[in-house]
């Protein structure tokens, strides 16, 4: 709908009064039309980054914010042409649904007919037909967030910014709205930055994800890259579950000796530990097993079950197993791992190239 624009942050740091550094000098490029998700634990600087992009917050001296070629560092938010969606909806309580959605259009002094047309268009997009006259406090949380979304996209902003828009909703509704927002963003083609601490949301919505850790970007990449090739232990641990196997020794033929058995991983020489995801470990008969252990706990998850297997290492391995099979505690279990699924943040994967980026 609108011609999208890229966003470039250069050396943007933010130190609050009292010397609290929320953001280390940060470089970030968001391609035009792309949805970038900022993901990370509480207090890592996601909101601060988003507010610097929006113009609600200024970077420390030396930082620069570009929209396309244009330097907007000195522009306040009202001149930046951004749409924002907040966690608490931030709807104007003294206005009806329609007045809320049309607020930005009235500010732009669009002709009445154009306002009516756009109002109609966006209410249809967010599926809120017939709600125009409602009071805000007569809406459910999900409906409120749709109004907020409609209000932000009605002005056809160059950039859409979301700060945990679904965090206040229950899980079912969150899933549904997440899908709707995803469709909407693809339909609009607007450049979007989406803050969340929910990894499922990040995976589903992000063209790329920036995982943040204490004011830095720990890794920037596609959801697949982030999941399968985490840049460090922090990212690996934050995105999904991860197993860490200590390497006790190395065989002459290159096999890695780990608690409970040994592994073949020629691409991981000289490391002190190797990592793998629970779903990449296969259960095999004990006779064919690379690693052997005992089931210490099984957690039923519905579709699957999570087994905790003690192999004699520091912490039990997490393994995903079909949910119908029963694994009483103490049962011996055989496991196998293909080299492909083993990784270490400092080493290239079997299929991948050497790491292109130096991660913080």
């Amino acid at each position, binding site marked *: 709908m609108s011609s999208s624009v890229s966003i470039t942050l250069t050396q943007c740091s933010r130190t609050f009064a009292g010397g609290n550094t929320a953001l280390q000098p940060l470089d970030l490029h968001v391609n035009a039309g792309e949805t970038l998700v900022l993901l990370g634990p509480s207090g890592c600087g996601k909101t601060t980054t988003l507010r610097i992009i929006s113009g609600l917050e200024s970077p420390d001296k030396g930082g620069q914010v570009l929209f396309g070629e244009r330097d907007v560092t000195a522009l306040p*938010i009202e001149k930046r042409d*951004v749409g924002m969606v*907040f966690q608490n909806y*931030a709807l104007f*309580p003294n206005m009806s649904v329609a007045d809320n959605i049309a*607020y930005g259009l009235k*500010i732009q002094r669009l002709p009445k007919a154009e306002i009516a047309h756009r109002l109609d268009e966006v209410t249809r997009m967010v599926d809120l037909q017939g709600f125009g006259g409602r009071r805000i406090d007569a809406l459910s949380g999900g409906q409120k967030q749709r109004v907020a979304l409609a*209000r932000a996209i009605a002005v056809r902003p160059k950039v859409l910014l979301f700060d945990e828009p679904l965090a206040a909703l229950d899980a079912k509704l969150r899933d549904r709205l997440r899908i709707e927002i995803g469709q909407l963003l693809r339909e609009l083609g607007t450049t979007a930055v989406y803050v969340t601490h929910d990894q499922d949301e990040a995976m589903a919505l992000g063209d790329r994800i920036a995982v943040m850790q204490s004011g830095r970007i720990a890794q920037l990449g596609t959801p697949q890259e982030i999941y399968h090739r985490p840049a460090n232990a922090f990212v690996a641990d934050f995105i999904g579950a991860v197993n860490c196997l200590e390497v006790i020794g190395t065989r002459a033929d290159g096999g890695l000796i780990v608690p409970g058995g040994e592994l073949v991983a020629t691409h991981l020489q000289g490391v002190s530990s190797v990592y793998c995801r629970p779903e990449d470990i296969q259960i095999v008969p004990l006779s064919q097993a690379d690693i052997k252990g005992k089931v210490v706990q099984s957690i039923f998850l519905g579709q699957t079950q999570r087994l905790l297997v003690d192999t004699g290492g520091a912490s039990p391995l997490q393994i995903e197993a079909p949910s119908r099979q029963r694994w009483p505690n103490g049962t011996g279990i055989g496991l196998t791992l293909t080299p492909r699924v083993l990784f270490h943040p400092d080493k290239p994967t079997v299929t991948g190239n050497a790491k292109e980026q130096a991660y913080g």
Partner: protein
Amino acid sequence: MTAASKQPSGAASYFRRQSASVGPARRKRLIALLALMPALVIFCAFWLLPFSRLIVMGAEADRSSGISAYLTILTHRQYLISLVTTVGISLVVSITAVAIAGVAGFFLARHRFFGKAALVAILTFPLAFPGVVVGFLVIMLGGRQGALAQTSLWLFGERWMFAYSLAGLFIGYLYFSIPRVITTVMAACDNLDKSLEEAARSLGANTWQVTKDVIVPGIAPALLSTGAICFATSMGAFGTAFTLGTRLSILPLNIYGEFTNYANFAMAAALSVVLGVITWMALSLARRLAGGNLGASV
């Protein structure tokens, strides 16, 4: 039933028989009535009795006109002017106070600067003064020997004064109204949801539009209720007016005059009732407009 079951056994059986015959609902009502009794007695003795006496007294014949004192207020210029003056000055004071202190309160709530706590303390200090002292302060500023008179005497050779007129009263009332508004508005601004302003700004609203569409509607209940309180206080303020001079024609001074100077009890009573009713109406109107949170913001 829990009340009965906690009694010693003998009493318990007595109560049970009682409740069986009277019925639990009626018994509850009886207990509630008994519990309310002291409050009711106090209410009747100290509020209902004197107040109904006041209302009845106001209907008696006025000494000078010979007709009901209520009618006298409405038909005699002197009282009408006093009524209009009192309502007028209270209204103007409330509106001015809300306008000035509303802006100041918003500024104070939103900005941090060195010495802010001290400034807020100084601004709210007049709340600690009784009306007499406020009147005294106005005289020191605009009275015969006041700062303004001294300055104008030195500059232009004449004494400028305002203390003994309605202007003096206005300044005095403003003096004790502003702190109330400032504290209320500061509290209301602290409770405003900041993301509303940010949302409005992201949609392109400038400072003026944000103020008009978000901030003022957000603190409107507080402005209304604090304005009503200012109005009520100004309507009944006696100390300040008395200090500034008994020649001012406003209701509280009229009541005092009729009562002590002329022993015209009917008129004093009628004026009191009128004053009370107007003030009460203003307060309840504001309470309704503000959505019933008047009590919380006082």
